[in-house]
């Protein structure tokens, strides 16, 4: 972009700019108050040995400087890497399944049929349930004398008494199922919105030309839905990385550490170990990693866009 000489503002524009600054003030103050200031604080605390029970106010934390010791500790912290690994595992399993189920559902709902509105509303319900409550629902369902085993018994004909939440692997699977139940509707909702955007006459023309459903989907719907799909996957991955409510209510991160996600690990450090300086360091570490990923992602997307335009 070449630098243009700024045209003089008309009085009206001037008035607008000034009013605009006032209007953004509340939002800016909130950002300053909970983003900018705490970030500085977090950097400061993360370089000390400070903990809330030290009997020292946080601003005197410099009395026990640890410099980058906390950051070094992260690399030797196998529990941290374990939780991070489990979190990534959950994201890697759950998000694609939710995506495929959501896509399938969206295809079922793509055109009109009697009863669509009511079925649609019911399908959206899981994601509106308070996640902690959803966690409790699945906690009940997966009890060894609970309804899931009852259904499995009815299907298999033999008595099933699996203690889902007490077995490390099964607990992980249970948590994943709960998350899939709650968030498949989100994928469904977003993907359906993208599908509705495909012009109908294009589909009709293709049908007349003899394209079968599979071809229509593969050649017409899919290419048009690319952006929507990326949005759905990105949003869900970011949210899934934070997974806490459902998981914590269902298993509390257990049995042992079997379902301990990064959020649960940090919570334990905060309240059980009270090692707040270290928590601050871990938080910053995650922040930096996520920012890098987001930065690279945005850059790539912009590059792809430019390529598409050229």
């Amino acid at each position, binding site marked *: 972009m070449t630098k243009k000489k700024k045209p003089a503002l008309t009085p009206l524009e001037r*008035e607008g*700019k000034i*009013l*605009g600054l*006032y*209007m*953004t003030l*509340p*939002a800016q103050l*909130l950002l300053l108050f*909970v*983003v900018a200031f*705490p*970030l500085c*604080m977090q950097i400061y*605390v993360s370089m000390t040995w400070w903990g809330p029970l030290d009997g020292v106010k*946080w601003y005197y934390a410099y009395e026990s400087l640890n410099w980058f010791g906390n950051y070094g500790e992260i690399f030797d912290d196998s529990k941290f890497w374990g939780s991070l690994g489990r979190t990534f595992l959950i994201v890697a399993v759950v998000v694609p399944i939710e995506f495929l189920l959501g896509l399938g*559902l969206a295809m*079922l*709902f793509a055109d009109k049929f009697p009863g669509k509105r009511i*079925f*649609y509303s*019911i*399908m*959206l*319900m*899981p*994601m*509106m*349930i*308070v*996640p902690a*409550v959803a966690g*409790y629902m699945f906690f*009940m*369902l997966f*009890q060894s*004398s609970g*309804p899931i085993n009852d259904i499995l*018994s009815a299907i298999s004909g033999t008595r099933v008494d699996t203690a889902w939440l007490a077995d490390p692997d099964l607990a992980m699977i249970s948590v994943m199922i709960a998350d899939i*139940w709650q968030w498949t509707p989100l994928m469904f*909702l977003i993907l359906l*919105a993208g599908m509705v955007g495909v012009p109908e006459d294009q589909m009709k023309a293709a049908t007349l030309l003899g394209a079968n459903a599979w071809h229509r989907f593969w050649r017409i719907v899919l290419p048009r839905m690319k952006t*929507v799909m990326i*949005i759905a996957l990105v*949003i869900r991955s970011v949210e899934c990385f*934070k997974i*806490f*409510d459902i998981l914590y209510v269902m298993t509390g991160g257990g049995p042992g550490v079997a379902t301990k996600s990064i*959020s649960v690990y*940090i*919570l334990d450090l*905060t309240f059980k170990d009270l090692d*707040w300086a270290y928590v*601050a360091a*871990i*938080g910053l570490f*995650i922040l930096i990693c996520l*920012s890098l990923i*987001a930065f690279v992602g945005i850059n790539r997307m912009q590059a792809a866009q430019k390529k598409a335009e050229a």
Partner: protein
Amino acid sequence: MPKPLHSYIWRYTLILIAVGLALLPVAWMATMAFKPHTEWVTTAADLHWWPEKETWGNFEYIFTGQTDAVSITHERTAGKPILASLVTSLLGTLIAVVAGTLGAYAVSRFKVAGNLPLGVLQLRLFPPMAVMIPVMIMWAFLGAMDTWWGLSLIYGIVTLPFAFWLMKTFFDEVPREIEEAALVEGCSWFRVFWKVTLPMVKAALASTALFVFILNWSDYIIALLLTRKDWVTIPVYMNSLSSAMSGQMYGAKAALGLIAALPPVVFGIAIQKYLVRGLTFGALKQ
């Protein structure tokens, strides 16, 4: 073009399976809420999907702390947590919507504060756990721990991105001509915003508020970190309902869960039209 019958049969079968799976957990909790104490935990062979003897006892228990069949009394009833959830969610919504609406209008019209759109979006990227330490220190320092205003404030900030982005897409859609006409007639910019634009997006504003309310109401982790006793919200209270002494209070928790689940579901269905827009920060408009 008429479709063959078998395609309908397939579709309805699949949809009914999906709907059934979506409803199953909700249905289990809803019936559990009306089961008497003796039916809370059963031996596997004796499992009932429908309460044998329906009762309101569970609701009685969470509101009064006692009921006939349950020997353990609970001194902390659900009244205060429900009030806490309501107050903090509503105030949080107010903060987010006011700050978000004003900011969104300014960014949409006057192209000021270029940092704001991405700045608020960042709020959404990071796990709350990773950034809560300084907030907890700050809140303790300000005496905001376990208070209604401390929790409301943080809710207002956490949901600000949604309010901001939703309102921005709505303002972007308002035709400029109407505003310009009012400006030509000598209205000030603020009057135009207040008297012309805002009334035009009234419905959108209401939807945004409901959407933000749902998000605040659904929070668990922030209340877990920033409240202790006086202002715990429903989800935190719910998890404290079981103890080593009482065991799992299945029915009571289910009753409370049902109460907690209702408002978001009702509101969510009311604002269905804008859900996609809200959840994708306006990237998709449906």
